[in-house]
């Protein structure tokens, strides 16, 4: 048995740890907080009971670097159990409890500024408590100042909130009283306009036919031009349709050319929508230009109709052309599929022609409909003016009615909004804050919308609810849907500060944003006497005015 001789280094280690334990005998065992001192005393027979009462061990087994107790309470000063806490005295700073799994793990834990957690010699952790303590005190002071200021501001918010709420209620009552009169005003104005219009109508009735004819003459060239466009468009569409039809019927299915297949598939989809929506094809009759003799329809209406039809056909051309153009770009040349080659030729023709049509369409813009020409009589002028006046009065009356209605709605919404237990957030209602990062500017209007802007604006969500019970976290949801992800949403987390501003914006998960907002609205409310002295000071910075526009 040679164990005794080789065990020497081990005994040295053991002896060391025992010595360490002894050095503190009579005092507190290592890692025990002073407040727990009475828990670490041996009984008369030199024994000690685990704090969970599960076992009794010799007191010498406390901190012997071996875990005896289930709850780990026998090793407050070592990592043997790893489940309890080690108390760092941190003289010069405040003491702290760190997990005993951090004892002698080769890391200088910042929480243990005195370095007492690393005592086995593998690493030296200097005592930096004085420095840390000083910094902490400064930090404490800074926080205290912020909290005091924040508290004052918040109290103002609360006051504001309460007064604003009653003001809003008063205003609603007042506005509601007005609504009946406003409705009456509108109706009166409408009656007057009707009378005036009838007068005008009467006057016009006599000259109707001549006017219509004149208008037809005036618009005839425009209608003609627009009709030519429509015809050309229809011709092009038919050509594209026929080309796709032939492609569909004749292409070689064995080649599995994805570009061709997707063009055909797109065409099938198109045919399906045609079946469902037969109106998509404008009736051929409408291609007729129409004339002044046509009393059924006015020249203006005819022009609008042809223009509208043209646009419909253009849109279809777009769909069909895109199918062919997409194929022409990606198809496999090596297959030499004649049907495909034919379609490609047509596609290129159409594209070339289209540019030429651009010329045919002359000024390359939509045709502008001129004002009606007329020689106005004084009577006609007076009647028209009366009618215009009546129209403008009606507009004003309706606008006022609308304004009052909107205001009532807005006030009602605000009154129904949960502005916190003490109406603190009335101050922030509809206030907007921006945050610029590298790529985007983020914005949120409290209780309103959140957005992300660069060249374009992306809607991130609308206020939906408070999260938790503390009135410090809001959820904005229902934003624009993310590709392959959820609807965008924002979690707004608030912390105490003397001014309102967004501190950071991040996207911890795709399309789920986290805004951190600093605001007095969540500062703790300190008792008044605490800040009396401060209040007496003339400092007014950060104070916000009351927002009477609420």
């Amino acid at each position, binding site marked *: *048995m040679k164990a005794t001789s080789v065990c020497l280094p*081990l005994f040295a280690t053991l002896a060391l740890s025992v010595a360490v334990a002894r050095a503190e005998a009579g005092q507190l065992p290592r890692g025990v907080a002073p407040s727990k001192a009475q828990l670490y005393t041996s009984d008369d027979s030199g024994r000690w009971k685990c704090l969970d009462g599960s076992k009794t061990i010799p007191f010498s087994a406390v901190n*012997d670097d071996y875990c005896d107790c289930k709850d780990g309470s026998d090793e407050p000063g070592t990592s043997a159990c790893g489940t309890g806490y080690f108390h760092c005295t941190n003289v010069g700073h405040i003491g702290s409890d760190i997990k005993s799994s951090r004892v002698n793990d080769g890391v200088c834990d910042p929480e243990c500024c005195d370095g007492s957690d690393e005592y086995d010699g593998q690493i030296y952790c200097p005592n930096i408590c004085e420095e840390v303590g000083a910094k902490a005190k400064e930090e404490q002071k800074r926080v205290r100042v912020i909290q005091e200021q924040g508290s004052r501001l918040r109290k103002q918010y609360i006051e504001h909130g309460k007064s604003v709420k009653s003001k809003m209620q008063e205003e609603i009552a007042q506005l509601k009283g007005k609504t009946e009169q406003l409705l009456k005003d509108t109706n009166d104005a409408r009656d007057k306009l009707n009378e005036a219009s009838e007068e005008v109508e009467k006057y016009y009735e006599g000259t109707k036919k001549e006017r219509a004819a004149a208008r037809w003459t005036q618009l005839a060239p425009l209608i003609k031009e627009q009709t030519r466009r429509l015809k050309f468009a229809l011709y092009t569409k038919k050509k594209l349709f026929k080309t796709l039809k032939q492609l569909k019927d004749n292409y070689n299915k064995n080649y599995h050319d994805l570009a061709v297949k997707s063009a055909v598939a797109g065409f099938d989809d198109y045919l399906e929508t045609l079946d469902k929506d037969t109106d998509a094809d404008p009736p051929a009759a409408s291609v007729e230009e129409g004339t002044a003799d046509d009393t059924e329809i006015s020249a203006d209406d005819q022009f609008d109709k042809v223009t509208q039809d043209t646009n419909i056909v253009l849109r279809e051309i777009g769909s069909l052309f895109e199918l062919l153009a997409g194929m022409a770009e990606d198809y496999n040349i090596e297959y030499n599929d004649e049907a495909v080659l034919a379609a490609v030729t047509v596609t290129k023709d159409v594209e070339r022609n289209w540019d030429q049509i651009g010329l045919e369409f002359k000024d390359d813009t939509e045709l502008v409909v001129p004002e009606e020409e007329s020689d106005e009589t004084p009577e006609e002028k007076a009647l028209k003016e009366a009618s215009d006046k009546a129209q403008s009065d009606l507009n004003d009356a309706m606008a006022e009615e609308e304004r009052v209605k909107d205001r009532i709605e807005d006030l009602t919404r605000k009154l129904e909004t949960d502005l916190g237990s003490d109406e603190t957030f009335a101050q922030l209602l509809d206030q907007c804050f921006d945050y610029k990062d590298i790529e985007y500017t983020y914005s949120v209007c409290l209780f309103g919308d959140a957005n992300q802007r660069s060249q374009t604006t992306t809607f991130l969500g609308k206020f939906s609810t408070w999260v938790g019970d503390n009135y410090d976290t809001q959820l904005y949801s229902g934003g624009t849907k993310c590709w392959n992800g959820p609807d965008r949403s924002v979690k707004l987390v608030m912390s105490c500060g003397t001014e309102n501003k967004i501190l950071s914006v991040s996207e911890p998960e795709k399309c789920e944003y986290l805004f951190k907002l600093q605001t007095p609205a969540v500062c703790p409310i300190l008792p008044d006497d605490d800040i009396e002295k401060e209040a007496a000071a003339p400092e007014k910075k950060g104070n916000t005015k009351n927002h009477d526009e609420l």
Partner: protein
Amino acid sequence: MDSARGLTPSSPARPSRSNRSSRTILRSVLALGLVLACASTASAVKREDFKTCAQSGFCARNRAYADIAKEAPDWVSPFQLTPASVRLRNGIFTADLINTHESTNPSPRPPLALELHLLDNDAVRVRINERDAILPRYDGVQETVLVKPYGFASDVTYELSTDTASGTTTIQYGSQNQNTVKIGSAPFKIEFLVNGVSTVLLNDEGLLRFETLRRKEEEQKQSDDDSDDSDDSKLVDQDSEGESSEIVIEKSELEKKLEENLWEERFKEFTDSKPRGPESFGMDITFSGINHVYGIPEHATSLSLKATRGPDAPYSEPYRLYNLDVFEYEANNPMALYGSVPFMLGHSKNSTAAVFWMNAAETWIDVEKSAEDKSSGLLSWIKGKKTLSTPTTKTHWISESGVLDLFVFLGPTQRDIFRQYSSLVGTTVLPQSFAIAYHQCRWNYNTQQDVAETDAGFDEHDIPYDVLWLDIEHTNGKRYFTWDEPKFPNPTDMQQSLASRGRKMVTIVDPHIKMDSSFYVSKEGGELDVYIKNKDGKSSFDGWCWPGNSQWIDFYNPKARDWWASQFSYDRYQGSTKSLFTWNDMNEPSVFNGPEITIPKDTIHYGDVEHRNVHNLYGTMFHSATAQGLTQRNETQQRPFVLSRAFYAGTQRYGAIWTGDNMATWEHLEYASPMLLTIGLAGIPFSGADVGGFFGNPDAELLTRWYQAGVYYPFFRAHAHVDSKRREPWLFGEPYTTQIREAVRTRYAYLPFWYTLFYETSVDGTPIIRPMFTEFPEDEAVFAMDDQYMVGNALLVKPVSKPGVTRSTVYFAGSEKWFDIKDYSVEQGPGFKEVASPADKIPVYQRAGTILPKRERPRRSSKAMENDPFTLVIALDSEGKATGRIYLDDGETFSYEHGDFILREFEATGGVLSSRDARPASKEVAKVSDFVQRIAALRIERLVFVGSKVALKKVSVGGQELPVECVLAPNGGGHVCTVKEPRVTIGEDFELLFE
């Protein structure tokens, strides 16, 4: 993943009346058309992105050949050895092999050369190549896959006998003279016997087929001739009397298939130009008397390979080996995945054998179980009753190009096979010790702040972890080796902060290089001309991957490898520190706009090698160059850590792999076990599956169960897709945080055991996690079992892979006891038993007869455990015996190669627990470092004896009595006795008495 999926369909803009030109209308209207087009293609499913055998010309041809053989009543292989050509010298047998079907041609094709090498590790190598090919066939795989020029076995002794009547040559060889090779000449076939028992047969089914290289012009001329002369379309058929008679028959559909897609192939919009024409080959390999075959990863299938041919075959497609990036891969499907190892092991109660089909081109493997299996399986239970046919597994191997180069390993035990195979392709390189602890990954940790918060989250919730990973978003526009500076302004500080708590970082580096002349890597790569070339062999290939237009480095170019390795030096890779390691992804390679999402086969590598020849090895070449870079960057060399997604035989020499982009489903959790077991059997034990599942969102229960399983993956990493919800272990709240913490801590407690297993596999190639049949090779009940497995020889693990489960049925193999590792409750084998598996644990048992070293103190990282004392858990068997080992070294450098390590063997027997030095004699002389000396002096703080029938009364060491405390195991069945502070160290010899 597919970049096209990123398009957000724009809503159609309506032309307004006043301000749109007709041209603008056309444009806005085009957008409408685009929506239409998108809608029609968005439903494209990934299965269609990948070929079936029928869509792969050479697979279809060789499978058709097999069909012809099966349909012909008396099929005989047309291949014969030319008797006059047979030679055997210095352990190498050579002969000419001719195809008698073709010899009637006016210009007979040159014969094939057969070589058979008897190797000094008792394995046999079989090679078939063209003797006088018009162009050399690619034969370079051996240069990168084999670890050394394998011995030509000149010192192997063998006996040769030839039976001229039957034309059979018999060679007897092997270290115990246990192996017999019988080579039949007409028809050609090879039979391997171990101790007289037929085990592996080559070309027994007569499926050998070899497309010799030819010129396209001749081919066309000949086919013209064929149409003139109808005689050539006759087949020689043998009638029942054995007389050869010519019957004129029309070419059947199958025969026509033999001539399809020879010179060019199309798949979807892609064309493979095949400049060398057809050059595939195939051969059948029969595992005689063996009903279960395993291996040929990577497929999301069961451990015991299912049949792909024959009546009732569960699969209709062959297993495919072609490294591919498969988006949202399916479980229970033989489709190809990210890695390929053409190694197959067959095992039965009586024999074990394996083959390694050394080819890196696209390969397909059909598996067919003999029809008699069902009855014979039952009948064979009846002792002494000889069944008419033994269960047999027939496999058919088909490769697109190269030479037939096959290794046959005959054991006789599985351990022998692992040793034989790994002596050729290498063993797992010993990883740094942190690499086997827990890894935290996500696509992506977005900013330096995010990293700091995640790191702090682990400490706050007291969950240990070692490595934080950064996915592609950490780079500046997917330019690897760069940082997105606004988000990661100070990567060095970030890594040092992690390192101060013993932690590491891993960043991703992929093989595609963004085409951008202002990016130094891209620019230098261009100047050095190190990119893979287009089929013209001149211009560099470019394609799409994460950075957009990219080029792929040709790691077959030695200059490229060295240049690549140099990129990892600290002055090149700005912002890297020695605690930064590497992740190689997308190295199949993944090319978003390529055929089957990979690079075209006709692209060209260094030395004018077509990509098709080396496809399955590309990822490994990349992996190897990266590992070389990490090794070289330090003056005192540190072991590298590189994770790769693609792999091939030999990958184990460079680092770890994982099973790629799995999904957050219970099914994928379940399939992770057979996949990892299979990959481990094939020589790559350092592997894992993404804990939690990559795609999708696991619920709290699935995530917790996955952590509990992942603790027992050799590579243990959690990972998540960018579109998934955050799922750091504490985010689901209690009780899940505690359950996950307990699971991860269990991994850390057993790290000494895991590290020892890594050492052992680095020596002999034995898998780390093992199928039940590896540890219990004679118990037929476990041959197909893959829902439970062994860690080393000691821990039995049964992951829970169903929701809402609180009880699990576990098979306890052998006749010894098993001890629950949490409370030491006892189960007795053999047989199935239902045991508790409540939410906070999965069934894990220590096997009686083993001693496991542990470190039980919870710590925040493995580094923080470096000086912690040990616990030994001694699980005594029915004879009061147990053994175990521990391996320790500095965990970082290569000094272990010079013997600077501790290897102890513990043994409990006859009431004595002893520890002795178990280092191989060759390692003993080396100097031991201070570090190792310090580790050697760490004490064993606790001994736990389980399985003792009576409570231990007295334990002593060196005459000094030690305190011992015994309690009864919770479910009876024995005592659990704990010895506090046995006053011995981990590195010393001792004898401790217990009674």
